[in-house]
């Protein structure tokens, strides 16, 4: 099924029976649990395009199947952007897919993740109900914020049809400083950079160095880059990263060394405590899972490594929410195995 309008999407959900797997561009189709017993795939990539964009209001409404990179191009023509930079964007990830996976990149340090940039949402529930929450203004507390609920929902609560996002100005200049160091030093350096009030937009450790990205006016990023302790001003940092198992994991920022010792490669938003790790075996993932909250994003074909670790205290509530939104269990079966 590949609807091209909200009405078609609603009809597709309402007039079908059986289970549905929501599919965007497929860049994260291996994330979370492996879907089981899927009757229909529901592709969102026919739902594309900007719905409303008034640059001076600094908000944009966009259909969920739109490629995020395409949206960024249109915003850039007006000197604006969504301050969200997950690596999957280059691979064609869609707006809805990024929200459903709560994905983010190094800019999470300065701007937060999808939950912090999403100000309104239109969704289709498993019974065909079309519901909206939030709105078109950045400040808004009217009603429950269902957009946040959909962040990290992996297509199990509803189909995201349309999103309204907060827009930021494109920075006039950027500078990235790389400081070769190990993860223990990275934690300490992060503290010093923040204490020096240099206001980096990102502080990312990977490939044997802490990368501090500054955004702002040309003269200012130059000064801040020069003031960064131990830094060498670099080209825009770029690395390719690979691994048998890939997991996204959260910890207190200072626990980075304890997380990193399980990884063969790691990229970490050091000040935030969100890490993406390449891990060489299922046993290593299981060890990590005993200590930290994680999501498995990639596993080798044939591996039956569960996507989620020990249930955290709010898992019963997650089940209760799932039960209310999708009592028949139509959407994304298997995604939250072994939790539900």
């Amino acid at each position, binding site marked *: 099924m590949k609807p091209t309008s909200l009405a078609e999407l609603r009809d597709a959900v309402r007039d079908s029976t059986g289970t549905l797997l929501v599919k965007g561009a497929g860049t994260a189709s291996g994330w979370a649990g492996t879907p089981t017993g899927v009757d229909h795939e529901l592709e969102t990539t026919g739902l594309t395009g900007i719905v409303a964009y008034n640059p001076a209001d*600094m908000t944009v409404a966009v259909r969920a199947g739109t490629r995020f990179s395409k949206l960024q191009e249109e915003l850039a023509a007006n000197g604006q952007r969504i301050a969200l930079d997950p690596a999957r964007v280059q691979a064609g990830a869609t707006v809805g897919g990024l929200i459903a996976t709560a994905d983010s990149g190094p800019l999470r340090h300065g701007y937060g993740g999808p939950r912090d940039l999403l100000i309104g949402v239109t969704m289709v529930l498993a019974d065909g109900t079309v519901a909206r929450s939030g709105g078109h203004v950045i400040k808004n507390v009217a009603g*429950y914020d269902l957009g946040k609920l959909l962040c990290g929902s992996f297509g199990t609560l509803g189909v995201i049809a349309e999103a309204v996002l907060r827009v930021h100005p494109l920075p006039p200049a950027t500078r990235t400083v790389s400081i070769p160091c190990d993860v223990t030093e990275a934690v300490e350096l992060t503290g010093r950079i923040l204490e020096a009030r240099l206001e980096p937009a990102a502080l990312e450790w990977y490939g044997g160095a802490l990368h501090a990205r500054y955004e702002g006016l040309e003269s*200012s990023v130059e000064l801040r880059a020069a003031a960064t302790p131990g830094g060498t001003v670099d080209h825009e940092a770029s690395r390719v990263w690979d691994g048998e198992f890939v997991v996204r994991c959260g910890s207190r920022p200072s626990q980075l060394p304890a997380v990193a010792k399980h990884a063969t490669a790691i990229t970490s938003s050091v000040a935030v405590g969100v890490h993406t790790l390449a891990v060489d075996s299922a046993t290593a993932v299981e060890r990590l899972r005993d200590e930290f909250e994680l999501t498995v994003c990639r596993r080798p074909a044939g591996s039956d490594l569960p996507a989620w670790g020990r249930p955290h205290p709010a898992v019963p509530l997650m089940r209760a929410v799932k039960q209310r939104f999708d009592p028949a269990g139509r959407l994304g079966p298997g995604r939250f195995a072994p939790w539900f």
Partner: protein
Amino acid sequence: MSLDALRDELTEVLRDGVITDPAHLRTYECDALTGYRVVPALVALPRDAAQVAAAVRACAAHGVPFVARGAGTGLSGGALPTADGIVISLQRLRRVVDVDPVDRRATVEPGVTNLDISLAAARYGLYYSPDPSSQQVCTIGGNVAENSGGAHCLKYGFTANHILAIDVVLPDGTPTRLGGDAPHQAGYDLLGAFVGTEGTLGIVTGVVVRLLHTPATVRTLVADFDSTKDAGDAVTAIIAAGILPAAIEMMDNLAIQAVNATVDAGFDPDTAALLIVELDGPADEVQARFTELLEKCTRATRVTVARDAAHRAQIWQGRKAAFAAVGRLSPNYFVQDGVVPRTRLGEALTRIAAMGDAAGIRVANVFHAGDGNLHPLVLYSEARGEHDRAEALSTAIAELCVELGGSLSGEHGIGTDKACSMPRMFSADDLATMQRLRAAFDPRGLCNPGKVFPTPRLCGERPGPYRPHPLEAAGVIERL
């Protein structure tokens, strides 16, 4: 339901922490929206999370509704009790449990005031960013419930962007935790969904907040304008130039007069409107942006730059005193909290002024202009019998904001006050979907009932049929 049995049970657990004396109960009959008053059946004053859980469990066992209360500074009737229900006050849970300068976070109890968190963090050069004008009194638990904002949220974001985890007692008495050590949620973002639900999903008994380093440099100016429209246009120009100030606040002449009668903030009593604009960040960035900012204020009749920290504090004292000061101009007033798209500020202010004139009622404006969050103060006299007219005007202003493509509320919440206007903004399906979330947390509807969502009892003859959102009507957004 048995209130007597509940009282006995609570007394056993809370000892002196139960109020039953009718005179004393009246302290809890309303929040800062004093137009709505209901005396609760009793008040529980637990001392710790375990006692909160025990109190909630007892309510669940006896089928008695309950409402959490922080400092009672809410402006939408969120903490309004029900006559057959109890108030659970978090005033005795006011410990700052831990300030962690390495991981830049603080763990606090829900009754701690917003300002006390920043005071506890100050010795490390850290602070808690969201700063409601009521920050000296309002509690972090209330902030979480309302997703409170403040003047500096334009750059730094609202409460929801600064909470890492909360401990919650669910409506059946079960304690749980939402969020965690990092903003990486394994699964649904239940923390994000909880913040701003106005005490309807459970009681917060512990909060882990993110702390930020105080900025390196701060520069503040006050710009006077000949009209609110000129001031509004300056706001649009600043934002459109890609400048992201820490704060942009606007006050009109009536608000300025009120402030000047109370504190000396140095505001010109004759100016039609003023903007307070503050930039913060690395010195060089702030310096260069400040020059750009001055260029955007060309239509200002006068620009005053804060000389030093003391002068800046004086300006902010003037701004933050505005609500209280308006009490001097008028025996009674309503505060509205609607939001409009930033490009429609001028239009909104013009229409509000016209509506005020038509109703023969004065409206003062003091608000967060940078994010389009209006706070029209509708001034009236109860004694002169103006209440109903003022209330109708106040509601009409909130609904005007929706009509302009905005929202009923930017930070004060829907509560009791605006519940009946919700169908102006959301369809029956939208509201029913929100109720699914509520039912997942509180299937029996005992936790702060009657708030946020319109009920036939509350809204009487105006159940407010759904009308298409103006953006839908204009074909900008589609429902189907």
